[in-house]
């Protein structure tokens, strides 16, 4: 069975977001809120980059 390698991004994103948030906040609710924001930010940023690459690929 082959697994789409993109799935391996999920635990990485979650861990990076939570650890980064943990170094910016102290109280756990604030850490979790900040972690979710960071996660969304990373996903949106990577999505924008992916769209740009797709557009560039379509025109080359």
């Amino acid at each position, binding site marked *: 069975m082959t697994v789409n*390698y993109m799935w*391996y991004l999920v*635990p*990485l994103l*979650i*861990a*990076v977001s*939570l*650890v*980064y948030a*943990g*170094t*910016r*906040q*102290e*109280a*756990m609710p*604030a*850490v979790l809120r*900040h972690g979710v924001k960071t996660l969304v930010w990373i996903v949106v940023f990577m999505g924008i980059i992916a769209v740009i690459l797709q557009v560039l690929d379509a025109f080359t």
Partner: protein
Amino acid sequence: MGERARSLTQAAAGRRGPGFVDEEGRWVSLKDPWIAAFLAWLLPGLGHWYQGRQAKAILFFVCIMGLFIYGCYLGGNRELGYARVVYASFRPGDMRLYYLCQIGVGLPAMPALIQAARVRQNKPPLWNNFMAPPRLGTDDGNPPTLSRLCYELHAYFDLGSLYTAIAGLLNILVIFDAFGGPLFPESPARKEQEAAQDSPSSVAPAEASETPGAK
């Protein structure tokens, strides 16, 4: 929080040692920051546990060790040995720069140093090649060559390397957090508070009271 504001807050808290005020207004002591930083390097979360910040200790331990252990699992198998993506090798032809990141997790990456020392002394690696550097050259044998590791593990060799290296890099952030506390994001209210504290009219009395021997 700025360094000046932090030191003033600390002074206002009555010289309780290094620490900071968290979002909920509670004083969080950093105890001995150097010991905390060393413990944080030794095992992710241990420095925070020493400081009494148990929730963050568990969070950091689970996230970082989860990444590290999963990366070790991906980068190995029963036949080749586990954790083959974590190894210390700085030989010509095999400069393993990933290890400089992986050593950030401290003790869990240390077996690689033992294995590297044994290989340097022409002794066979221990523990079924766990964290052992691959054989140089092209002749197959035990331990397997880097080419065979990459061939057998496919992309999982790179994925495992990435997971373990990122775990080590994340722990460097955690070490800084154990040493100096969190780097709170700037908020408008906090900026105003810091500006008020940094203005000469408010700083002068605070400094005067802090100066030893000041009347």
